[in-house]
């Protein structure tokens, strides 16, 4: 039996559908941005986007969708070079953004287009040790001087995480007044105590956490916090007195944002937003160091002020120079593994 009361319902539904169609077609402009980032920032940017999207819609009346792409930082950079249409890049290292810029996709001088040398947040390398720190590891010299310490770190040749850790170890000698030879001796001893050179940061974490290899894991601060939290008391985080200032930088990809109207404006607003107090708090929440000093100090329980962070310029001209000298073909890292007597 057919109920006649269904007809008005049908009309209502039809009306609703038409109304939705009309509203979307006459609606505000829609913009879809692509943020190409590196591996561990997935939750960070999801959180950031969920705050920025409604804000931008309220301010500009533009309905924004922000897609995220994650992977190894330099792999991501190569994807952008090869044609992945990123509107903004938020990669782990100057080297990666610089490589995109050298291909002409990001205009020269990009570093100074945003505040604080395009660094809305910073990070560093810390130690993760086993519960109770049985080997008593507090500082860089402990890694090579305490007996039987085995160290887990990613391969500096294949991992951004790996080379930043290498620079941190190298700088711990140089910045404290050691000579180049002292530093070479130090990193040689250190890497002789690395039983496994995982190709990426994820692999190194698995080696340390799941397979129980090693006494200390050199990790990025934000990843170390997550690693320790997930281990439920089995691991501890140690802030060495000195470490490197890691500088993940953000940039608008000029070649891509100018192709479609509305993209440049939204992309620039997006990156500028990351410097606001609200966004800086989001960075801190995800264990990235806010570049805003006041907000950083608010979180001194997480980011102890006692840790001295040296910039890359303390050990080389810049990131490119450091990478060439220390990690690149024929660099210091290569000499560590050269078989003796040849």
């Amino acid at each position, binding site marked *: 039996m057919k109920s006649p009361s269904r007809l008005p319902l049908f009309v209502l539904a039809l009306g609703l559908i038409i109304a939705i169609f009309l509203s979307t077609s006459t609606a505000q402009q829609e913009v879809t941005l692509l943020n190409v980032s590196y591996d561990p920032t997935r939750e960070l940017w999801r959180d950031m986007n969920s705050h920025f999207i409604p804000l931008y819609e309220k301010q500009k009346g533009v309905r924004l969708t922000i897609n995220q792409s994650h992977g190894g930082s*330099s792999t991501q950079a190569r994807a952008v070079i090869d044609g992945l249409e990123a509107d903004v890049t938020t990669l782990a290292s100057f080297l990666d953004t610089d490589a995109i810029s050298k291909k002409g996709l990001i205009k020269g001088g990009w570093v100074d287009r945003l505040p604080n040398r395009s660094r809305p947040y910073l990070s560093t390398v810390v130690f993760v040790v086993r519960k109770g720190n049985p080997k008593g590891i507090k500082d860089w010299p402990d890694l090579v001087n305490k007996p039987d310490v085995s160290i887990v770190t990613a391969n500096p040749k*294949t991992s951004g995480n790996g080379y930043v850790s290498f620079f941190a170890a190298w700088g711990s000698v140089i910045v404290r007044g050691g000579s180049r030879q002292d530093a070479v001796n130090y990193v040689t001893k250190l890497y002789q105590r690395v039983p496994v050179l995982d190709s990426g940061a994820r692999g190194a974490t698995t080696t340390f956490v799941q397979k129980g290899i090693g006494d200390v894991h050199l990790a990025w601060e934000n990843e170390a916090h997550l690693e320790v939290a997930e281990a439920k008391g089995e691991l501890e985080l140690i802030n060495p007195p000195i470490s490197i200032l890691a500088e993940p930088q953000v940039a608008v990809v000029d070649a891509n944002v100018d192709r479609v109207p509305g993209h440049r404006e939204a992309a620039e607003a997006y990156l500028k937003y990351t410097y606001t107090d609200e966004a800086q708090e989001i960075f801190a929440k995800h264990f990235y160091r806010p570049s805003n000093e006041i907000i950083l100090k608010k979180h001194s329980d997480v980011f102890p002020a006692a840790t001295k962070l040296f910039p890359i310029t303390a050990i080389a001209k810049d990131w490119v120079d450091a990478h060439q000298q220390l990690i690149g073909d024929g660099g210091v890292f290569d000499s560590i593994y050269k078989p003796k007597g040849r």
Partner: protein
Amino acid sequence: MTLGYTVFYLSVLVLIPITACFLKASTLSFHEFWGAVWTERARAAYYLTFGAAFIAALVNLVLGLLLAWVLVRYSFPGKKIVDSLVDLPLALPTAVGGLVYASLYVQKGWLGQYLVPLGIRGAYTRLGIVLVLVFVGLPFVVRTVQPILEDLDPESEEAAASLGSTRWQAFRNVILPTLYPALITGFALAFARGIGEYGSVVFVSGNMPYKTEIAPILIVARLEEFAYGEATAIAVVLLVISFIMLVLINRLERWSMRHEY
């Protein structure tokens, strides 16, 4: 017409990417090319890559034949399941295989806790690399030999037996020669797979330069420096060596077919 399609597919899928590889590598001067591909470290990596792939393919030759034999000649409960398990290494992301193998054989792993005290280290060693390559290459020998074994008429064995040969002699002189071409094909496939394997090996090898560093890792290392030319140069060397070896194996296969008796 069919030839046209074949050439088209082959070009799109194989020839064009390989040509692109050669073109990219040719942006280097000879000196740069040589400097990228013939360092001591690179030679150690080639030696390891081809050596490990070769040993793993040999192991697969024996294991694969055995497995194919059991699957064809015996019936036992769960045979269908075992038969499907053989293909699993093809379906599983090899990184998963590598991670699992490494976890099993480390000192605290299920197998490692018994094997490491005996001096058998199956993780972060060359042995580990061979183990995962045996894993990823297993289906190839089984799947090439199996259909030939199935088609093999048991009567020829019976004939051999009635003429007074032992089971071993029958196997050695009657069955094995008909299997040579399939075995060689399976070996070549497993070998080629081993050379190209990356995902599982990086997790199980430990990637120590000169010791457990395979050639594909060097390619990734050069890409990390955005040195595309040098990276492809190493790829070209791998391609050329693989191609020569596969041509030789093909020759061997044809030779074995001609000498069938």
